[in-house]
């Protein structure tokens, strides 16, 4: 039964990686990156490497998306027109 969990982890990682590239919303892309890090950590454990999974969870699931988030936030403060970032113009529902 190991291989079902194995391939399911791989499927989620692949879906998340496609989402990172394809999502137009930059915050959504950073969240998909965090998803990839989390499920990749789970995949490391399933394959029998819990020490690598530690590093993957701390760096790949938390620190790296946070760095991207800070970078995106700093870029956005300098751009007046948000459509210049390559994102679609905001609808009012997208604001928290």
């Amino acid at each position, binding site marked *: 039964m190991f291989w079902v*969990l194995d391939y399911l982890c791989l499927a989620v990682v692949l879906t998340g990686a496609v989402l990172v590239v394809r999502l137009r919303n930059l915050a959504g892309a950073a969240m998909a990156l965090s998803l990839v890090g*989390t499920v990749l*950590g789970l995949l490391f454990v399933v394959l029998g490497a*819990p020490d690598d999974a*530690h590093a993957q969870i701390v760096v790949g699931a938390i620190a790296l998306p946070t760095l991207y988030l800070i970078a995106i936030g700093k870029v956005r403060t300098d751009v007046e027109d948000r459509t210049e970032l390559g994102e679609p113009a905001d609808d009012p529902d997208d604001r928290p």
Partner: protein
Amino acid sequence: MVEILGLVAILELAVAGLLVVRLAMGPSVTDRVVALNAVSTQATLSLLFFAAYADRTIYLDVALWMASFSYLGALVWARFLERGLL
């Protein structure tokens, strides 16, 4: 009996796959944050059940780290949402 634990681990990850759909098409940022946090919880639970299935106590350590750091990650996302940077 042990097979059930592995089956539950697989099903938890399948639920995470359903949550990926919400993360992909969630209309607002808050939907995506909630979906991401739920995916982290599902991955942690799947890891716990897999540790019980594989009978390795060292895997529980990874589950502990994943639970505590997903909490910190959700805190960071909430802080950035609060400041309106997203």
